[in-house]
């Protein structure tokens, strides 16, 4: 019987936990489960509780949870997801050999894939507005990656939005030159998405989002990591670790086949026909 601690930041990641447990369905496991419901400051204390319980392994959902779990002990293995870029945030020394008694699966969808997706969805689009939170580490990484990948494909107009209240003024930043909006990941804008799509709708600007709920909320489409699949892959890594392998030597995985998500209601409102090639591949088409 194994004892596994689960440290979760928000309920949005229930599906990742579900996938993780699926992978371990054949094992005998007792789970100790903590969800701090969005309160990052609580993570270290709960990580410590898991260490005190002497769990065999911690499954940490999100970067802050992973940081707390790794810091809480020098030996209890940690498996994490959906950490966007484990190397740049210091969780892993490298993707191949992460060290730190931890490994996991990155939730990053490659910027090249996203560029190709936008070209397929909106073949006419040339100039993209890109609102992002300049204080969000993950957003900065994605912006840098996307800029590189978009070279020769799109002209990008960066729209830094540093605080919640700045979202109220987004309409001042949107211009006629933009054909569409690409939203990199980042909690600030993802949470307040309704106010962003409120303004872009006014200008008939389609949004390509990176966060699945935003596609339900009115973006025309997006490529998003499937959290359940990420969780499942973490579960497989957990099995390797429980059978004796050192977590720090197991390469960090990445999103191989992101979900294609589309919104037909939005497409109708914007008078855009969703390409059949994407419709066929879509995991979900929201109405």
């Amino acid at each position, binding site marked *: 019987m194994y004892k596994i601690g689960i440290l979760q930041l928000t309920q949005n990641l229930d599906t990742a936990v579900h996938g993780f447990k699926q992978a371990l369905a054949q094992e005998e496991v007792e789970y100790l489960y903590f969800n701090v419901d969005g309160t990052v400051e609580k993570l270290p204390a709960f990580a410590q509780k898991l260490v005190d319980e002497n769990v065999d392994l911690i499954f940490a959902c999100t970067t802050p949870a992973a940081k707390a779990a790794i810091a809480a002990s020098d030996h209890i293995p940690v498996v994490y997801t959906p950490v966007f870029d484990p190397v740049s945030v210091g969780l892993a020394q490298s993707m191949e050999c992460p060290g730190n008694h931890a490994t996991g699966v990155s939730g990053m969808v490659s910027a090249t894939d996203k560029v190709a997706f936008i070209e397929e969805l909106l073949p006419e689009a040339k100039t993209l507005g890109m609102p992002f939170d300049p204080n969000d580490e993950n957003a900065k990484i994605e912006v840098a990656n996307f800029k590189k990948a978009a070279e020769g494909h799109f002209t990008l107009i960066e729209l830094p939005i540093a605080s*919640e209240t700045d979202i109220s003024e987004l*309409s001042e930043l949107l211009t006629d030159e933009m054909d569409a909006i690409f939203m990199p990941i980042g909690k600030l804008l993802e949470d307040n998405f309704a*106010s962003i799509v*409120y303004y872009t709708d006014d200008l008939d600007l389609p949004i390509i989002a990176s966060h699945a*709920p935003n596609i339900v909320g009115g973006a025309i489409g997006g490529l998003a990591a499937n959290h359940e699949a990420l969780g499942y892959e973490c579960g497989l890594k957990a099995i390797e670790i429980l059978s004796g392998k050192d977590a720090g030597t197991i390469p960090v995985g990445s999103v191989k086949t992101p979900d294609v998500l589309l919104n037909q209601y939005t497409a109708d*409102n914007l008078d855009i026909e969703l390409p059949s090639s994407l419709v066929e591949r879509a995991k979900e088409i929201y109405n």
Partner: protein
Amino acid sequence: MLLNRQSVEILAPAGSWEVLETVIEAGADAVYLGGKRFNMRMHRADTNFDDEQLEKAIKYAHEHGVKLYVTVNNLISSREIDAMRDYLMLLERIQPDALIVQDLAIMELAKEIGFTVPLHTSIMRNTHNSESVRKYQEYGITRIVASRDLTLDQIRLMREQTGIEIEFFIHGDMCVSQSGQCVHSGVVFGQSSNRGRCLKPCRWPYQLIDEETGEVIPDSEQTGPYKLALKDMCMYRHLPELIQAGVHSFKIEGRMRTADFVKRIVSIYRRAVDRYLADPTSYTIDENDWKELYENRSRDFSTCYALSNTLGAKLIGYDGSREPRFFSQAVKEATLDVKAKLGKDESPAFKARPQLSVRVASLSAVEVACKNGADIIYIGGDAFRPNKPWSLADIREAMRIAEPYNVKVVVMTQRITPNPILGELEQHFTALKEIAPDGIMVSNTGAMKMAKEITGLPLYADFSFNTFNHYSTKWQSDNGIVQSTMSVEASHEQIVDLLQTSQSPIELIVHGPIEAMVSEHSIPSAVLGLDNEDQTPIYEHQYALLDTAGQKHSIRFDQHGKSHILLANDYCLFPYLPKLTGAAVYRIEGHIYDDEHLAFLLQTYRAELDSLYAAPQEEANVDRLASLKENAPRPLGIGALRFRVSR
């Protein structure tokens, strides 16, 4: 009445299968959950149960001796009626223990199809007086979710007067507005809080300003930017009061919460209730359980209005630090420059010359209305200070003024009429029977029932009925309503749908202020530190809330001290009148305008409606529109017409 194990039901939310299993294990007596269709938690694709899971969940709950209620508590539009009927057929087959419903249409549909599953009214019906309860009992409703704005004493009275079973929110997220009476999200974002898509404008930061000078009123030490952010309800320390008030079902909020979170709450209440029921005299609060509940709280706790409705600043979490997440930020509301999204169907032709109605706040305005083309004048109801409530003498005088013009005078009632105010209404209606105005406009089903029984006068249903479909208008007309007002959250397509399908006359509000929220909480009192003091200083000024998009939301106090918070832009559908033909009546909410502007508005709309009646037009008259824009004392906008569908 003696208590037994069945006296109290712990009712837990279940947003997913995992939560369902967990809360049943934790000791819930009943669970409530939504299907994928027509329920109040529509933001997340991964919550709620599909049809097959729903059936399994019912079976699972019953195997464990637990009741299961399905929330079908969205307003529905006319074109959703058939889908709703299908859904009810499915629910009839799989037999949950009850449905929790909002739309009056469901009571009508249930009758039509011989539905056998019991119906409970949802919190969104804002049930706050005994007459409403009696009306619902006529439709076989066996339980109500009592309004969250009532005190336990008011709930006890409602229970004693009607014998209805009471469900009450005892723990979790709350609304600062009266439930089911907030249209902020619906009008501004086209995502209605009455349809499970609230984007929570009450969680935005606001500054309080003096509306006349624009001056910001600084926050006191007790207040801060998040002025409408109501704390979470927690009645743990008051369980004996709840039980003795006759609350049967202890409802825990949180269909989007995790299993872990809900489990803790259920188990802690379970233990306390069991101890109380077993031996009430020896019951004391378990301080360890309280500590656990408190330490794991989401927002800070309050008892909201249950013990008193004058709690002021203590109700609000001003610094926003414990807000679990935000759903939107303030936006600039749609102006007249924004183009409406028109539906494909054309509105029907006029059946008769369109009538123009107007709500006024003074006798001088009655005269203005008569002289400038009004057919119906609404007086009475909620009076925004400094206006005084209408006296019986004022009503007689208004009728005397209107009589030679052959203009109808209809007396409104206040929007929220809990039992004490309903007592006053009984007196009022008895007098009105003698005075015999042309009709009474009622704002809730209790006032409707009482007005019908006492006066026998024609009844009009106000926008607060949230009328969205022709089954709802049928329900109303069966109950003596001669004219229903379309919900202000409707899009063009939805308005046209109702105009095409309703058997009874429809009134459209086409111009005037829209009340985003109506609340027991007074923001100026809290900011000025007047919680338990004399409230008169707040009536010496007009206040407004300034949001981060620079929009000013006027606050108006009525005669009972309730706050009516207006949207920044007054509604103006003038540009779209050619596409909104076929309503019986077009209303100007004129009670906040001066007589001169009111005369101008009435002339403008009268002329436009008459020319549309004479011959259909493609576009509204350009000169009249320009003049409307130029003379507007407050910013104008098109509200929910910005959206193809109000969702």
